[in-house]
């Protein structure tokens, strides 16, 4: 009997031939037994093959920093859903069905994900035409005093487009359904072909506020496929940039949460301080979002001795100011009263849905790629993982703040001991017929890139899972039993990416 999985690690490669391919029954069995043994799904996607659609599942086992890979082949027009037993697969399966014109049997929620044209289909089958965006069978509650509220895709502020349907009984939200796809740009389709600058730019703009998170994952993929080890100095600069990205976004979110409860001092202060963190990134590479800093083989900009000491000064000032701004929150009972007990996601729900990042940690799940599957500088220098217990807006706010303190410490530590030497190595030829996997801990959580290469070393499939992909259903669960007026607050406390899902 073939082993159920083949193993690799973060930033590793496997030959496609090594990956065990199971019959659908055995695949399901192996998957369930892995999940019950503590494994977790990081990616699950389809690939067009000559004889059908091959499904690859990548799982993580955190205490051994191991990634397991297995596959199965779908040859019929439909495949059987495993979501009932493994809810964390629910959106992955809908995506596979949509991308490969398959029907999904036994799925509790078989709906379009991106309203996108298919990537492929079975031999001899015409790919499905995408349904019109927004037209689908929304979950509906009926009865006296039940009403429906529809919001979006165009929202009141400068916000990415999405559509939300609330089923309400009076003020109480019984269910929120999130329908995305408005930002669908065809990124995975464009990520086929030879790796190069175009691919790197696409990776940086998968979710623009996670330029370093996605850019580093892309660079790690190319480095894995070319057996390139970036120099130590480059790894340190990448780590500093990734933590600056986290600081900027967390600061913005803490300000936005304050704004949404009507507490304006912290909102205004944080709005500005967020810009200070963005400007620190611009100080390194010229771009506030870290564009063009991370390149395969290292980083494109070095941090001079002067630059490093200036950055350290700016970090000190920012720490002082942001602590002052955030402390006001914890000192204001009316703010805390609004945050506590609002939008609760239980640990059990978070576990079943496979939430990641601060949203998962706020519900008590102790997972963080920087520690569980360390990459780059995090293999040398650890960051403590912060968790909450209550799973409410308060916990998501508090976890963010605790993470910010750790990021500030980390940057100061790195700046004080920057390794010398080069910042970039040339990358060589890309290995043919391989699978490469890269995980990073972006500020929203786990960013997963998986690449498959063909016989010429071009990407035949590039699969991206933004943390938001795991977490949008967490937001829906947070609203259950709440009020519509809780939505903006819950939404800010998750701050998920639309474009990261819509790809």
């Amino acid at each position, binding site marked *: 009997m073939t082993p159920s999985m083949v193993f690799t690690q973060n930033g590793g490669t496997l030959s496609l031939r090594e990956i065990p391919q199971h019959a659908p029954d055995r695949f399901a069995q192996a998957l369930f037994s892995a999940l019950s043994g503590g494994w977790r799904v990081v990616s699950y996607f389809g690939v067009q093959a000559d004889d059908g659609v091959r499904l690859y599942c990548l799982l993580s086992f955190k205490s051994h920093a191991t990634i397991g890979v297995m596959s199965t082949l779908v040859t019929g027009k439909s495949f059987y859903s495993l979501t009932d037993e493994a809810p964390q697969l629910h959106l992955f399966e809908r995506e596979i069905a949509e991308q490969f014109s398959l029907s999904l049997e036994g799925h509790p929620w078989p709906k379009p994900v*991106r*309203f*996108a*044209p298919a990537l492929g289909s079975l031999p001899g089958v015409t790919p499905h035409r995408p349904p019109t*965006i927004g037209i689908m069978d929304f979950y509906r509650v009926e009865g006296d005093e039940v009403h429906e509220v529809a919001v979006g*895709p*165009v929202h*009141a*502020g*400068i*916000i*990415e*487009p999405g559509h939300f349907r609330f089923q309400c009984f009076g003020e109480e939200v019984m269910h929120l359904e999130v329908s995305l*796809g*408005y*930002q*669908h*740009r*065809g*990124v995975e*389709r*464009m990520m086929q072909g030879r790796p190069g*600058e*175009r691919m790197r*730019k*696409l990776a*940086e*703009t998968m*979710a*623009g*506020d996670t*330029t370093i998170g996605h850019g580093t994952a892309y660079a790690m993929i190319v480095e894995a496929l070319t057996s390139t080890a970036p120099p130590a100095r480059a790894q340190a600069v990448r780590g500093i940039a990734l933590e600056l990205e986290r600081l900027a976004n967390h600061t*913005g979110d803490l300000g936005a949460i304050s704004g949404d409860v009507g507490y304006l*001092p912290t909102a*205004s*202060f944080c*709005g*500005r301080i967020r*810009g200070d963190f963005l*400007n620190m990134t*611009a*100080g*390194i*590479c*010229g*771009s*506030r*979002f870290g*564009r*063009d800093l991370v390149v395969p083989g290292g980083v494109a*900009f070095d941090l001079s001795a002067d630059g490093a000491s200036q950055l350290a000064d700016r970090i000190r000032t920012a720490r002082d*100011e942001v602590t*002052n*701004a955030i*402390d*006001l929150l914890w000192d*204001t009972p009316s703010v805390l009263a609004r945050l506590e007990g609002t939008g609760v996601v239980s640990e059990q729900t978070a576990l079943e849905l496979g939430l990641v990042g601060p949203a998962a940690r706020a519900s008590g799940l102790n997972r963080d790629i920087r520690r569980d599957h360390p990459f780059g500088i995090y293999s040398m220098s650890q960051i403590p993982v912060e968790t909450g217990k209550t799973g409410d807006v308060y916990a998501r706010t508090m976890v963010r703040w605790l993470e910010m303190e750790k990021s500030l410490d980390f940057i100061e530590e790195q700046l004080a001991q920057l390794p010398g030497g080069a910042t970039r190595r040339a990358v060589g030829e890309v290995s043919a017929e391989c699978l490469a996997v890269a995980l990073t801990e972006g500020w929203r959580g786990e960013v997963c890139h998986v690449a498959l290469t063909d016989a010429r070393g071009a990407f035949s499939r590039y699969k991206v899972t933004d943390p938001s992909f795991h977490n949008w259903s967490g937001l829906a669960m947070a609203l259950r039993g709440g009020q519509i007026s809780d939505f903006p607050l819950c939404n800010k406390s998750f701050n998920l990416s*639309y*474009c990261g899902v*819509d790809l």
Partner: protein
Amino acid sequence: MIKAVLARIKQGHRTMAYPKKPLPLPERFRGYPELKGSLCPADCRLCADACPVGAIGCDKGLSVDLGKCLFCAECSAACPHGAISYSGDHSLAANRREDLVIREGEERRLARALDKKMLSIFGRSLKFRSVVAGGCGACEADSNVLSTIGWDLGRFGLQFVASPRHADALWVTGPVTENMREALLLTYQAIPAPKLVIACGACAINGGPFIGSSEVHDGVDGLIPVDLYIPGCPPHPLTILDGLLRLLDRLE
């Protein structure tokens, strides 16, 4: 309460003096390109081949299309002759699409002010309704920044509003995905005339990194006319503000 007051004193007054005083930008900021086509050997296409989005032209002398440019500077890195470099000049916005294509020796065609009649309508109060039509969220983030205390867009009579019915202008970011096309057009129709359209960022101008994708329309001007193009991926807030102030004749 006393803590909030003390914090207010500590954090201080932070609205920048711009445009009265210049705003320093980081040393590595990549702004308006400087071209030295005379340095180009015949038939050299190194810069054009290095550009991930086809922003560089070599056929009739060296040119850069700022509407497509992602300011990644791969062209400068690829050129051994130093024919292209990026200056720290943040002024990039223009009124017409063709004005974004720059060539050596040509006069700069930055955004001009609205005509007298339009200035009398919008010169002191211009309200935007934003539509995010795809993209990556970075243009949106740096548009939002303008409303924070540092930039304080409100002091110029500029504001983002929640309804197209309250707006004078449509603010478009993103390459216009097929899935956002209808929502964009409906929002445009809902804004009362006379109205302006602003394309903010490389995506909204010409598709940005997503140019050529079958799922996007490569920018907004194929669907509705644009009055102000603001290049950048994403544009720096200063580039955005500079474009708006030029349009409203507020820059000396």
